[in-house]
């Protein structure tokens, strides 16, 4: 360091000095390389930078400071060496860190610095930052730096060109700086391309490309430069960065001038005019005019086309339709504004004509320049209706002053009409410039504005004074043509509530209040019911469907006529609301044409009729119809046990035939009319259903005869009683199983709509309830005469029958001593009966002599079943024997048990007999 610092020890520009310098550079590279091996990127760069800085300081001392090309040549070499080193490294294991702040959070590994960068790591931890100088980037950046340094070197060299005395000048003269710079840039370009991710749009590479193009330009390779410019401008144009485009265009234009390509120059000038010239507005159009006047096109009829699509527009354009929608055959008015920019001068642009093209097959509007027309700041040009291309008549052409001062506006106002449903807008704009033999056609974008300008969407409402109305719809720049909506009035008539099982008529009344003939079709969709067990369907013209009835034709309805359509809803099962979607589609088939016609449109009429199939309107309505049950039904069920003794097994009928001695059930059914309207009940029938387990023996309605038809109001009730015989227990019974009701009531009824009018006859089926006969294994029957004479003996029998099919019963009988005072009792007072086998019975008889007169209570007999207790309680035998289960004793004179026969069966023997004196 001291050696380099002192010119005395090491005089500059000696052989030794040069050697030492190269040596120092080489060592620097080595050190950097070692740091990189160690992943200490920041240290590597820091070392490299400090080396360059130190030697930059020395260079000043040696007389080769920043103002000399030698210094920059050396700098460029340093960067290039670094870049090459990194490039080599990248081929093996070197990776480049990404400087995302998240990776440098405390706690996380400081990825930007590498695991070994201890001093800087500490530094980073303390300050949470990064020296941008020490942030390692991919070698493209360093190649770029080298190229920049080479450019600086060339600059210095050119500056010192006169001073031939400068040392090293002779050598430097031989160097082709631009080729060198180009090589470095190209390298950088490739590396940038390589390192750019797929997500990015290559803006960095484009920048390098721009530098390359500039270098080509500098080195006089204009064609190459032009090729680069063409490619670069595409992206910049798309992204609308005009500040970047302007200098680019200037250089490009200079290139074309050098190349002498007049057409390209003209094209470029047009684009440059569009782009705007901030410094000297108007100079570009002067340039353009000069070129146009001073040269002739390659062939006289040639039209030069300039595409300004996706570029900055010359004019801000705005299209407003007054209404977002219009009916077919109705005129939609529009205003198309061409507004000159405020900061650009295009007053001398030789605009000959402007053609406005519509999106569909319409004749374009042509504005032709006429200097004598109004030149107010706001010019209104009225065109009448815009016609279809195949219509007769002249193309629309109007004269207008097409010279713009800054902020001038030309507003084209007109109407457009469509005979078919369509979305219309202005599709393109072609501006023609004409000057001394040149014809330039500019394809211009529509509805675009220049960068940074906003033209408020205003509708010109008056010219004198100029007044605008803001139109702020988002869809203002197009209009949608639709068919005129059909004026159909659809009404529904039906009763308020539907009753289950009823044929419920719903009438759709369609009135055509339009002036066209309309073909109407009705679709009816019955939505699935939301409750279980709901059954529903709709009937129309004998067609029955549980879902959709499609295409119920109503035919063509003439204007003013009406059509009624009735369909029938039948809901049964569960009471719930039924939802019906009705869609009435009208179609102007074979319609008369819309009334707003011009004779010119006659040629179009054929296409209208072919398209009229799509002129369809749909009217949708959802009906929610509550359906309620007409009756509410309650059943009272009484079970009676058969008094007949079990048939002996030996009897043949026990095995083959049906035996109906399983007891009897009396079902009392109560119907209550719950419909919101009166009902006429026409008949009630009990329909028997074949079953081997139960059968209906008699029914009160069959005995009573005709009570019907009768009118029932809401809340009225009527009753019906029927008897059901059950099959004997042995057959078909599974323990605890319910017996389905062996029949159903069929009620036929009508709704009374008005005193004179009844609805259609409906039938409601109400099945008998499930029968749950009591399960009793042991039952006792007490038989005693109802009357007795004082002191005359009577007999009291108790039959204990074991209905159990598998188990024998151990039964004890005890006479309650406290209840025997009215009688002298002879017989068993208490004791065990012989074991009763399954299906067998045991009879106990007492002789009683009444000793009191009047209503006398019969002695109470307590019957206990011990066997049941045993089985119920397997391990506690003694307890069961003690307790036993009381057996139900039934007075055979009444022989009934009420309800579902709960098996608690305490002897409800409140029975008394009458003793005569």
């Amino acid at each position: 360091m001291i050696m380099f610092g002192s010119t005395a020890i090491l005089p500059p520009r000696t052989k030794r000095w040069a050697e030492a310098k190269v040596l120092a550079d080489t060592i620097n590279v080595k050190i950097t390389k070692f740091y990189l091996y160690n992943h200490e990127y920041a240290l590597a760069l820091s070392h490299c930078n400090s080396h360059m800085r130190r030697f930059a300081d020395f260079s000043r001392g040696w007389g080769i400071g920043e103002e000399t090309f030698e210094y920059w040549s050396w700098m460029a070499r340093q960067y290039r060496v670094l870049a090459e080193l990194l490039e080599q490294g990248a081929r093996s294991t070197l990776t480049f860190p990404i400087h995302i702040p998240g990776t440098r959070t405390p706690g996380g590994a400081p990825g930007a610095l590498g695991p070994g960068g201890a001093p800087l790591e500490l530094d980073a931890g303390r300050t949470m930052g990064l020296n941008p100088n020490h942030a390692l980037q991919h070698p493209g950046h360093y190649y770029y730096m080298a190229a920049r340094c080479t450019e600086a070197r060339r600059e210095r060299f050119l500056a010192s060109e006169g001073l031939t005395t400068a040392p090293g000048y002779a050598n430097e003269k031989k160097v082709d700086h631009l080729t060198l710079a180009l090589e470095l840039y190209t390298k950088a370009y490739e590396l940038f391309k390589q390192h750019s991710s797929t997500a990015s749009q290559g803006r960095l590479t484009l920048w390098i490309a721009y530098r390359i193009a500039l270098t080509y330009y500098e080195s006089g390779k204009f064609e190459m430069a032009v090729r680069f410019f063409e490619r670069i401008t595409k992206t910049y144009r798309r992204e609308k960065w005009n500040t970047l485009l302007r200098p680019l265009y200037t250089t490009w234009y200079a290139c074309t001038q050098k190349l002498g390509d007049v057409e390209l120059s003209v094209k470029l000038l047009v684009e440059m005019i569009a782009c705007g010239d901030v410094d000297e507005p108007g100079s570009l159009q002067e340039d353009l005019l000069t070129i146009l006047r001073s040269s002739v096109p390659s062939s006289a009829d040639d039209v030069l086309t300039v595409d300004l699509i996706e570029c900055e527009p010359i004019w801000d354009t705005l299209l407003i339709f007054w209404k977002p929608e219009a009916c077919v055959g109705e005129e939609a008015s529009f205003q198309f504004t061409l507004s000159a920019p405020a900061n650009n001068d295009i007053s001398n642009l030789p605009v000959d004509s402007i053609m406005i093209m519509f999106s569909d097959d319409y004749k374009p509007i042509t504005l032709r320049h006429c200097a004598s027309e109004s030149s107010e700041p706001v010019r209104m040009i009225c065109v009448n209706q815009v016609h279809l291309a195949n219509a007769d008549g002249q193309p629309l052409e109007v004269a207008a002053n097409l010279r713009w001062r800054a902020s001038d506006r030309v507003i084209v106002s007109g109407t457009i009409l469509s005979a078919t449903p369509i979305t219309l807008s202005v599709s393109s704009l072609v501006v023609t410039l004409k000057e001394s033999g040149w014809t330039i056609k500019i394809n211009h974008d529509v509805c675009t504005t220049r960068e940074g300008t906003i033209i408020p969407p205003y509708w010109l409402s008056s010219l004198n004074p100029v007044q605008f109305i803001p139109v702020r719809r988002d869809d203002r720049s197009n209009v949608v043509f639709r068919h005129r909506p059909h004026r159909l009035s659809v009404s529904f008539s039906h009763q308020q509530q539907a009753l289950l099982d009823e044929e419920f008529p719903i009438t759709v009344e369609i009135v055509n209040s339009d002036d066209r003939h309309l073909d109407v079709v009705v679709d009816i969709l019955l939505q699935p019911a939301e409750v279980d067990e709901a059954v529903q369907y709709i009937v129309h013209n004998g067609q029955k469907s549980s879902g959709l009835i499609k295409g119920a034709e109503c035919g063509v309805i003439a204007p003013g006529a009406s059509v009624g359509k009735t369909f029938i809803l039948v809901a049964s099962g569960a009471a719930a609301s039924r939802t019906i979607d009705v869609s009435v589609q009208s179609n102007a088939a074979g319609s008369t044409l819309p009334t707003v016609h011009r004779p010119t449109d006659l040629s179009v009429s054929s296409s209208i009729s072919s398209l009229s199939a799509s002129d369809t309107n749909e009217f949708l309505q959802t009906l929610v119809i509550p359906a309620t049950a007409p009756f509410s039904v309650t059943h009272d069920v009484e079970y009676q046990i058969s008094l007949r003794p079990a048939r002996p097994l030996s009897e043949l009928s026990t095995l083959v035939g049906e035996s109906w001695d399983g007891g009897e059930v009396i079902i009392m059914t109560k119907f209550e009319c719950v419909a919101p309207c009166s009902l006429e009940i026409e008949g009630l029938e009990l329909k028997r259903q074949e079953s081997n387990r139960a059968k209906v023996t008699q029914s009160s309605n069959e005995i009573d005869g005709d009570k019907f038809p009768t009118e029932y109001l809401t809340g009225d009730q009527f009753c019906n009683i029927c008897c059901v015989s059950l099959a004997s227990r042995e057959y078909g019974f599974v323990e605890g199983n319910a017996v389905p009701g062996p029949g159903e009531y069929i009620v036929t009824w009508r709704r009374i709509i008005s005193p004179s009018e009844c609805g259609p006859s409906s039938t409601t089926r109400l099945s008998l309830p499930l029968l749950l006969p009591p399960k009793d294994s042991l039952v006792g029957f007490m038989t005693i005469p109802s009357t007795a004479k004082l002191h005359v003996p009577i007999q009291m029998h108790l039959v204990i029958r074991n209905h159990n099919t598998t188990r024998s019963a151990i039964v004890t009988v005890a006479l309650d001593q406290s209840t025997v005072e009215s009688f002298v009792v002879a017989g068993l007072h208490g004791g065990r009966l012989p074991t009763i086998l399954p299906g067998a019975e045991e009879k106990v008889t007492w002789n009683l002599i009444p000793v009191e007169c009047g209503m006398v209570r019969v002695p109470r007999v307590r019957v206990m079943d011990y066997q049941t207790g045993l089985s119920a309680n397997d391990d506690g035998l003694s307890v069961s024997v003690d307790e036993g289960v009381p057996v139900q004793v039934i007075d055979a004179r009444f022989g009934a048990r009420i309800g579902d026969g709960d098996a608690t069966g305490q002897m409800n023997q409140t029975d008394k007999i009458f003793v005569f004196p």
Partner: protein
Amino acid sequence: MPQPPRLNAVALISPQNHPILIRTFQKGDELKYHYVAHTSLDVIEERTSGKTKPTECYLGLLYVMDDVAAYGYITPLKVKIVIALALTDSVVRDADVVMIFKALHMAFYEAVSNPFLKLDGVSESTADYSPYQAVGSMKWKRLRQAVDEIHRALCAYAP
């Protein structure tokens, strides 16, 4: 103690990648900073569209080019802010940069909240970005002044 960073240029870029405002504090070098802003978009897009989306607005150092270091920031509504700091051989603290970005973000936010920007609005819908364009135009000075104020504050803070 590292020196506060020296601000060379500020660029605000709309979600559609159109420049809203590019303010340079070095005379005669405007084009360079336009390029810096434009090329920064590449790196910003790369960082925001990667597999690991950044949770913070601050995107850190984008790249170093010539004598400037570009730092990026993206607001929740995708307005990108790029600042170009002069390259000095000292550590730039993230906290300082974030502070500058936050100040710029606030300045933009306040400027764009101006209801009068919508006076000439193109449409009534909320997805209208025309205020973004308008706020950077010459007509409205507030954002420009606020950015200049931030630059001045930074210069005053520097020794």
